[in-house]
């Protein structure tokens, strides 16, 4: 890197001239630049440095706003009614307000990841020192931090180097948040540009966190054969005390595992995780268990399976304390961001804290020292388990029927269910002793509990659903590939050419949360479909858990059925939320390692390369969070299209191309400077798919890129047509827009294509060397 802090501390030194004691010397920065790649035009970009690039994308992919609210309530001038073109007291209209909300959501997401990374880095530097070397893949990875190199121009070598990168991200997030204040930005596209900016920053922040923990905590290092770990509620050995960790920050889990190992009780307790912290604890310790995605929180707690609940940060139900209290499970909050109103016991002796929690004197504590969390959690679990005896709040089947009879069929539950599930019908059947419909709900319910909040009869509807699904729960014993982290340089070299030329039909990154419209099986089905078609399937977060929660006809999970490499037909789990940065990193590394494009501070050129050449699509089928928004925004700026499931419409804005408008699809041919119409490739930058079936087809289409060779395009079109016939029941109606020469037409579909092309007055065009950047044109036309 280019700058380092020098800090010299001498406790005692005898010299010829005397004794030196307690000398500390700090020199701000010294130049130590062994990063020989030339610096590109935009190292550490400011809010506006990449604005022109954003505007290119936003001209091509125009926002379609769907306001969730007619009002703005953010300042005391308001509430202001912004309906249908009215402006608020500050002058903002509804389009600008909508984009402002998008930007703020992305800023919250980026702040969340970056703050998480900051905590990790701080903890790891404290434990291992600033000079601890980074190692994310040994000799297989030379480009260790592609996103950071691209955005900041820094090549980090040590944990301390990451500090400088993180400082930059923190400044940018602050700048973006400032933009959200009343009376700042006044244009929706500028808000959109800043949303993309903070999305890009988010990927830097995530990368810092994950490469720090991979390096220091010994996580799998770009290993296609990272261990298979146990997944599912039934994989937990309930004869042992169970410590359940929820959240995203692995440090408290590390404390728990280390303590259990040190005391040689690691085989006598179960350490299980829910949401992304589960991924990271299994990267650290393969005997840990992944319970499942975020939506499994209530299931696990109400079923009485947790003897102690440890909360770190992000995506934690804020009523966990109440839920855990009902089953006698003490709660330990372990993050400054999530104190839960508990008394801070960090400095109290562990014996006292354990005694208070086991006796029930207090039901929850705040402990901000991960090592102390480890000791307290393990000891409490060991002592509480025999007292609790798996106390739960689930009714018996007989009680279930009686409770269901108290339902008045008012439909409040359904009207408050985010999925609009037919809960009243299930209750009616249950009242007659038929729990089939409740059991069906177990498979698809996202576990939010809103039905119970709405019920005027105070029926614990979700508990009834859990009880009805108990048999299914007992079968949830599956496997997840432990998060492997980055994609190695060797893998990039192997697939760079077939990806860019289109012969590997695409990369499908299935990421994000579990707000699925019809349960996690859709995720499994989508992944399996595309892996079978030899797309590269990359997973992370809750989606990676859902994908591993089902088995094929031979009883194999997805991770057993397909290889774990970044290869055609591979299904790889990068890991937790912060590991999403490796997906962006892989795309960036294709441009760098395969195409030899310079990375360093060269964002626009690399994004232009990825947008026009790399057939990658992000799918966040159950995206719910602000973090998912910022991850998506980071992909948008790289020009990678993102699809969301139907709930993603609640992000209130899509970025859509108009395929029938030829001016939308012009690129420069870098060889000649000519403008060439390349068709809608990719058609959208951010869109929603309403159903799994539609999603399947949309993914195949969104993998099409202007740079595809005729062979690659032919392969991509054959998948697009085949999936459309299978899932939509029709031939696509826009094939003529994707055929450039007759060589693009799949040979087995020639007759069908010819008819379509003739009907649409199709004309042959050229396959350009595509770019949106005039400066990339080697010979500009006069």
């Amino acid at each position, binding site marked *: 890197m280019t700058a380092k802090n020098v800090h010299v501390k001498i406790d005692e030194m005898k010299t010829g001239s005397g004794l030196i004691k307690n000398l500390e010397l700090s020199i701000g920065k010294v130049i130590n630049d062994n990063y020989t790649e030339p610096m590109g035009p935009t190292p550490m970009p400011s809010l506006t440095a990449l604005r022109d690039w954003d505007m290119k994308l936003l001209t091509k992919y*125009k926002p*379609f*706003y*769907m*306001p*969730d*609210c*007619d*009002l703005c309530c953010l300042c005391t001038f308001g509430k202001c*009614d*912004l*309906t*249908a*073109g009215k402006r608020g007291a500050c002058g903002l209209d*509804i*389009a600008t307000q909508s984009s402002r909300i998008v930007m703020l959501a992305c800023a919250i997401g980026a702040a969340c990841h970056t703050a998480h990374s900051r905590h990790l880095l701080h903890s790891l530097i404290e434990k291992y020192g600033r000079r601890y070397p980074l190692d994310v893949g040994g000799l297989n990875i030379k480009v260790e931090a592609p996103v950071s190199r691209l955005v900041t121009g820094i090549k980090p070598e040590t944990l301390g180097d990451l500090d400088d990168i993180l400082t930059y991200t923190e400044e940018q997030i602050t700048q973006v948040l400032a933009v959200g204040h009343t009376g700042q930005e006044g244009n929706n596209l500028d808000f959109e540009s800043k949303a993309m900016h903070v999305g890009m920053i988010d990927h830097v922040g995530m990368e810092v966190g994950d490469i720090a923990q991979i390096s220091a905590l010994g996580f799998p290092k770009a290993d296609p054969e990272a261990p298979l770990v146990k997944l599912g509620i039934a994989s937990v050995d309930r004869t042992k005390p169970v410590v359940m960790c929820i959240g995203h920050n692995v440090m408290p889990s590390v404390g728990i595992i280390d303590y259990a190992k040190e005391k040689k009780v690691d085989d006598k307790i179960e350490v299980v995780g829910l949401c992304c912290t589960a991924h990271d604890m299994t990267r650290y310790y393969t005997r840990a268990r992944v319970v499942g995605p975020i939506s499994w929180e209530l299931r696990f707690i109400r079923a009485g399976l947790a003897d102690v609940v440890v909360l770190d940060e992000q995506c934690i139900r804020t009523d966990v304390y109440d839920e855990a209290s009902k089953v006698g499970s003490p709660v330990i909050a372990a993050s400054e961001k999530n104190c839960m109103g508990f008394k801070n016991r960090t400095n109290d002796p562990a014996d006292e804290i354990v005694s208070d929690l086991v006796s029930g004197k207090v039901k929850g504590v705040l402990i901000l020292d991960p090592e102390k969390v480890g000791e307290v959690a393990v000891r409490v679990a060991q002592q509480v388990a025999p007292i609790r005896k798996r106390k739960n709040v689930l009714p018996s089947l007989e009680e279930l029927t009686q409770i269901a009879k108290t339902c008045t069929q008012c439909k*409040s539950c359904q*009207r*408050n269910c*985010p999925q*609009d599930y037919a809960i009243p019908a299930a209750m009616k059947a249950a009242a007659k002793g038929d729990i089939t419909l409740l059991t069906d709900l177990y498979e698809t319910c996202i576990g939010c509990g809103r039905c119970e909040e*709405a019920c005027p009869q105070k029926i614990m509807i979700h508990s009834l659903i859990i009880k009805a699904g108990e048999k299914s729960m007992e079968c949830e014993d599956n496997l997840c590939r432990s998060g492997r982290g980055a994609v190695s340089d060797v893998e990039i070299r192997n697939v760079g050419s077939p990806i860019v030329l289109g012969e590997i039909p695409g990369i499908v990154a299935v990421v994000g949360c579990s707000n699925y*419209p019809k349960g996690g099986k859709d995720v499994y089905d989508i992944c399996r479909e595309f892996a079978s078609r030899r797309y590269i399937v990359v997973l992370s977060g809750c989606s990676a858990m859902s994908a591993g929660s089902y088995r094929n006809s031979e009883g194999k999970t997805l991770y057993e059925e397909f290889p774990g490499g970044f290869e055609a037909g591979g299904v790889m789990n990068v890991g937790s939320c912060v590991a999403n940065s490796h997906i962006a990193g892989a795309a960036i590394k294709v441009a760098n390692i395969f195409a030899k494009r310079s990375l360093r501070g060269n964002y626009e050129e690399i994004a232009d390369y990825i947008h026009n050449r790399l057939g990658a699509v992000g799918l966040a089928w159950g995206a719910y969070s602000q973090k998912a928004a910022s991850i998506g925004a980071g992909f948008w700026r790289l020009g990678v299209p993102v699809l969301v499931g*139907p*709930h993603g*419409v*609640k992000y*209130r804005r*899509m970025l*859509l191309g*108009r395929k029938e408008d030829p001016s939308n699809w012009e690129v420069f041919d870098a060889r000649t400077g000519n403008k060439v119409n390349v068709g809608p490739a990719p058609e959208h930058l951010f*869109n*929603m*798919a*309403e*159903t799994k*079936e*539609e999603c399947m087809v*949309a993914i195949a289409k969104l993998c099409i890129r202007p740079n595809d060779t005729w062979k690659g395009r032919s392969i991509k079109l054959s998948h697009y047509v085949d999936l459309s016939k299978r*899932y*939509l*029941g*029709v031939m696509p*109606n826009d094939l003529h827009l994707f055929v450039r020469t007759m060589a693009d037409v799949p040979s087995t579909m020639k007759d069908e294509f010819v008819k379509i092309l003739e009907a649409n007055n199709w004309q042959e065009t050229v396959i350009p060397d595509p770019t949106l950047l005039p400066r990339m044109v080697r010979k500009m036309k006069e």
Partner: protein
Amino acid sequence: MSCEPWQCAEIASTKKANPIQKPEIAVAMIKRAQRPLLIVGSNATERYMEGKQLIEYLIDFANASKVPVVATAHMVGEFIKRGYQPAAFMNAMEIGQRVVDPEWMGLDGKGHPDLVILVGLPYYVESLMLSGMKHFAPDQKTMTLDNLYHVHASWSFPNATLEEWAANLKVMTSKFNGGN
């Protein structure tokens, strides 16, 4: 039933849909429209009334009224399976974006729809699409044929039972020349 949003949290609206108290009112408005358009979503095969799927009622209605249909999600194949050819199939967001574009000349290129009717999309998706239309195409008339009150539409049926819904759709179909 009530004219409150079916999903209870969808209340943040200052301009609320006019309730359609009788199906004849909806028919009159559709007949008055020069270029109506019907957008049918994925719940068309998920919702049942009197043992029949919603899509079957909608095919009857579309055949009778001659209102062109845009099928979203994977509904195109479902229509074709039942012998009905929709005018177009398109992603829900794509058709929503076109509706709010005043320069869009409709499916046939002859003019922008003057009445956009939505039915059978997931409630929250339809709600947000209607919100987009309300805000960004304020002169665009919108209607929903669902049995769930949609606050952002210009006109919406109140929340109604499945039996009432089926009856409404049948009455509407019967009021067009092509109806039985």
